[in-house]
Every structure is written in C-alpha cells, then in structure tokens.
C-alpha cells in the first residue's frame, strides 16, 4: 500500500455502559476500506460490546463512530444497519422457527435483494442450497454459522461485523469458513472478532487488541505475528 487508505469506519474513543457497568472505556478502531481488520483480546475484554456499540445495539455514551465519513453514534440500530452494515453476531442468532429461505429473505432491504445475490451466496456456501426448506433450528452449528454469514450478505452491505465465526466449529468447517470470509472480503470490508489466533493471523490485514474495555494496540497483522512478546502479554494462551 503506497497511499494512505481511506477508512470506511473509524471508532474514536467510545465509552459504553450497560446498565451501571462501564464496559468500554476508550476503544478506538480504524477499519480501512477493503481490509479485514480483527479485534483481538481475552474473554470478556469487550470485543462483542465494541461491535454492538458500532451498530447502536448498545449505544456509546461518549465518543464517535464514523461510517463513510458520517457520525452515526446515537442513531437507532436499524438505521445504522440500513446504511450498509451487516452483522453476524456471536452465537449466530439464526431464527430457529424460520426456514433457511426465510432467514435469508428477512434480511432483504428492498425486494429482489436475495435474487440478485443468490448466486454469490450459494457459491460461497453450496450446502445452504439443499437445506433451503429446513427450519433454521434444525441446522448443525456449522450450517447455522454459514447461514448467519449468508444472511448478512443478502443486502449490499459495505461493512460486515463478524463475531467469532469459528466458535464451536470442527476444524474442517473452520477451514471452509475462513475460505468463505476470504472470498467475500473481495467485495466487502470486514471487521472480525476472532479468538482463534491462527485463523485471525491468516485472514486479517490489521488488528486491534482490546484489554478490559480499552484498545491498547493496533497495527498490521504482518508485524504482530513476529511480535512474540505482545502476543504472549495480551493474548496469552489464545495464541
């Protein structure tokens, strides 16, 4: 990269409270256009809350979230999402009583979204095509994870927030998932949360480390993989 890349998303020093609890105390993340950026950190560090704060599900009390040059903090989550942000939450949140087809159709923002993107989605996840009539609740963990990513791809999203896509999956399925994320990132910028450091280091261009509600480190993934000290210190056994 020779020119400074434009950031599609900039999180600037956000403070988030859940009820009385001060969960995020100064998180800043830059997500360059077209990149895969990963949030690293131990369990309970605040990675999920950072994603939710970006989307507005847990609105930050202070700080800015700038998406495509516009401040979006404080807006209702549905409006932020409709600006072009797709969300693949922790634990997938597939609608169990809806069929696979309905799980995809509900994500349409305008009629015909699914028809336009069908080929791309089933190209990434061919399995989903034959499961299309099943209730989401009958899918295996891996299939649900694929469906959750597919659902976020139905509308034309410019940014995907993906929370721990490898969680609880078998190694073969993790490989498939990595490959899918690599391929979709050709079209969409990705902000990823991933505990599996091997997966994170192979996918991501950039990283931000979060420790007890603060972002304490960020940079190029290529540099981090050689920085044993930082990995040991902040990620510990995870690496």
């Amino acid at each position, binding site marked *: 990269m020779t020119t400074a890349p434009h950031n599609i998303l900039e999180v600037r020093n956000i403070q988030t409270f859940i009820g009385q609890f001060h969960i995020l105390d100064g998180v800043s993340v830059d997500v360059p256009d077209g990149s895969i950026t990963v949030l690293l950190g131990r369990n309970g560090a605040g990675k999920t809350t950072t994603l939710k704060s970006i*989307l*507005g*599900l847990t*609105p930050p009390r202070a700080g800015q979230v700038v998406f495509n040059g516009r401040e979006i903090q*404080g*807006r*209702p*989550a*549905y*409006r932020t*999402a*409709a600006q072009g942000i797709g*969300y693949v*939450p922790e634990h997938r*949140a597939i*609608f*169990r*009583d*809806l069929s696979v087809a*309905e799980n995809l*159709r*509900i*994500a349409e*923002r305008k009629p015909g979204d699914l028809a336009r993107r069908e080929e791309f989605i089933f190209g990434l996840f061919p399995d989903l095509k034959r499961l299309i009539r099943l209730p989401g*609740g*009958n899918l295996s963990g891996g299939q649900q994870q694929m469906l959750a990513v597919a*659902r976020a791809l139905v*509308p034309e999203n410019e940014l995907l927030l993906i929370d721990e896509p490898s969680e609880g999956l078998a190694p073969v399925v993790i490989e498939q998932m990595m490959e899918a994320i690599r391929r979709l990132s050709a079209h969409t910028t990705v902000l990823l949360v991933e505990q599996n450091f091997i997966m994170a280091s192979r996918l991501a261009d950039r990283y931000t480390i979060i420790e007890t509600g603060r972002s304490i480190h960020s940079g190029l993934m290529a540099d981090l993989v050689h920085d044993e000290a930082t990995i040991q210190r902040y990620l510990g056994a995870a690496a």
Partner: protein
Amino acid sequence: MTSIWKNNRAALIIVALTVVILGGIIQTMEPKVWVSIMLSGATLASLYFLVASGLSLIFGLMDVLNFAHGVLFVLGAYVGLSTFLNPRLLFNTLPIFFVLIASIMMSQHLGRAFWSRITDTRTRRIATVVLLAAAVGLVLLALRGFPMRALNAFNITAVGGLVTTANAQDPLALMLRRLLLLALGGVPLGLLLSPAERPEEVSLRPVWQTALIAGTSALIGILLLVWRDSGEVWMLALSPDVRFILALIMGTVAGALGGVAIETGLIRPFYGNPVTQLVLTLGLSIAGIDLIEAMWGEEANPPMPTPSLFNESCRSDSIIGWFSEHCQSVDVVGRAFPTYRLFIILVGVLVFIGVGLMLRRTRLGMIIRAGVQDSEMVQALGINVRRVFTMVFALGSALAAMGGVIAAPYLGVFPAMGSIFQLQAFIAVVIGGMGSFIGAAVGTVILGMARAFGDHFVAAGIDLPFLDTVIKGSPAIARASTVLIMAIVLLVKPSGIFGKKE
C-alpha cells in the same frame, strides 16, 4: 419426520391425552348432549381466543404482559353497543379524542426544540411536573360539566327506532369551546410524549405528514360534531344489520387505537424495564374500567340485538335451512343451538386462519415470528422493530375489542365483562405456551371444552358405569378446573404446550 416428533413431543403427548380423555367422556353420553356441550365450549373458546391471541403475540414479541387486554375487550363491547343503539354518544364524544390526538401529534414536533432548551436535569424534572399539571388541568377544565349521564340515557330509548329527542347534548358553541381547550391541553401532553430525549426511539415523520394526519383527524372530529344531528338520524335509520357491521368496525377500530395509545404512551418509554411496564398495565386494567364506567355508567346493559340473520324466533332443521329462515336456533343432532353462537365460533375460526396466514405468508408475519425469538437481531438487520411492536399491539388490541363486540349480544355489556376473559385468556396462553399463536388456539380450545364439560357435570353429575351413585361437582370445582389443567400442563412442560421460551 423425526425432528417434528422430537421438537413437539410434549405438545403431541398433551394433545393426544386431551383427545383420549375427551373421547372417554364422550363415550358415556348421547351424541346430542356432547355435541351441544362441545359447541358451547367452542363458543367460549372462540371468545377466549380473540383475547388470548393478541396477549400471546404481544408477550412473545415484546415480553410485555398486557394486563389491560381485558379492558380493550370491554371497550370494544361498549363502543359497539353505542354505535348500534346510541350514536349520539359517539358523535359527541369521538370529536374529543380526534382533536386531542391531533393536538398531541402536532406538538410532539415541538418536543426537540423544547427539551433541548432545558438541559439540566432538575429543571427538566420541574418542567415535566408543570406540563403534566397543565395537561390534566386543561383537560379537566375542557370536560367540566360534560353531560355524560344524559348522553348515556339514550341507551334506553331507541332500540331500532328513530330518535329525535330533545337535546341531551351540549350546544354546538359550547362543544367547540371544549374542543379548543382540549387542543390546548394536548400541547403539554405532546411535549411530554415527544421522543426528543430518547435517541433510540422511532424518529418522527416529516412535519407535513404529521400536519396532514393531525389536520384530517381534527377535521373529522369537528365535522362529526357539526353534523351530529343529521348523522344520528342517518345512522339510526340504517338497517340493524348495517348497524351491527358498523358496530363491529367501530369497536375494532377503537380497540386498535386504544392499543396504539397504550403502547406509545405507557409501554414504549419503558422497554427494558419490565416491572414498570407490568405495574403500568396492571394499573391501567383498573383505571381503564373506571374510565369506561365514567363514560358509560356502572349499570349492566342488556345484550346488544343480534343481526336479523339470527333473529327469527324459530328453529331451523339444518344450517342450510337457517340460511333462508334466519332462525334464532338450529337443530344440531336433536338439540336446539343458538345460531348466533355459531357465528361467534365462525369469527374465531376466521381470525385464526386470517392471522395464521398473515404470520406464515407475509413479510410482516415473518418479521413477527423472527422477533418473537430475537427482536434485537431483527433490528440489526435494518428493520424498525419498534414500529412492528406498535402494529402488533394494535392488532392484538383490535382482536380483543372485536371479541368484545361479538360477545355483546351473547353476554350483555357491563364493566366487569372483560375480567373473566382476561383471566381465562391468560391461563390459555400459559397452557399453550407464551408467544405461540398455535399454542394460544390450542390452549383456548382446551379451556373452552373444560369449562363447558365442567358446567355440564355440575348440572347433571357424572354417571360412571362402575359406581352406583351419580357424582356431582360444585361450581367452584368447574371454575377451578382450568387452573388445575394449567398446573398439570406446566408440570409436564414448564414452558407450555408449544412454548419455546421459559
């Protein structure tokens, strides 16, 4: 498929058990007896269902237990009755609501400007109290001496005839002055209800749209008032059948509007604070009945007349015969059964099919089903879930109110008529599984049947083949039977027959 069996094992077992028990009971009876008991059960089930379906959807989607749902049933019955017998009451009172709502809607737009000027919390609190006092004061002033009692008295005079009785209503000029005061009273209310302080709220529509809606509302109110005399004569001259349909529409619409008012005014500011919501709907279940008594009086009204389709004093041999004869009752395997109750059952079935199709086939239905499981995820997909909440609240309230209207010819109309339905619907929803539409239907059918068979055994006793004496139940046992069924179901499956959440 095995998965269907696995997912619904408890449901299938309970339903099979119910069928076996029912079958066993039926074995000991003549067909004409059990068929008519089951039809009575179905009538009750239909009315329970109209209340329970909304209760269940509202709980499923918003986690709100709406204790005020029975009030909407009563509201529907009263609005329906007034439309049928006493349109004068409506012509004089509806404008009050139309103008008040118009004023509230318009002044909500001033909310942001108003509240942004007051930044410190103490002043805000004082402003809230002052606004509330101003609103209550102005509304009370506007309605001082309003001739509610005299308006009500018309209930008695006019079954089916033309009434041109002397004025039991305020002169037009006085009414218009009242409306002006109400419009002023709506301003502080609108400021109080403005979403300026809550960013995650649904934002307001553009001012011109609000102005259009509010303007139309106010205009309708004023026109109703100006044309009240000719309007009344026109309405009472309509055939009773048309008036019945009008009553059904008016009652249902009143329920829907009541639901929107409850959701936006009481529930919405307190999402994420379920105890407050619970206390508020509980309070409203009492205050709402008080308001209805204040408007329509405490006395019980006789049953509303049925449409002419169910009116001839004869007994048809079959449903086919009834189509041409319009008898009050029809012969069902040797016993007379009131035809109007068949109509009640039909309405319940149609609502079940209609709402069921809406849930299965439409995008709104898909969003509702998804939202029952995880409304935050629906929101994260870019869907304004709060608006869906309001729509579902309106729908559920409309169904309850519709139940009230169709129950009016069957039960009569009185302030306490909703409480039993509220309770039974609540039990049915718990039995069927909170948030499940099918569950609400199954639960209400079980309860309706239990009630009908229970009443029968209280009257006739149980004649078991291996006992010499007939066992007679007490009415208390018949009433308690529904709670007993609930306890048994909950022991087998704590989330209810079709329940998914705990």
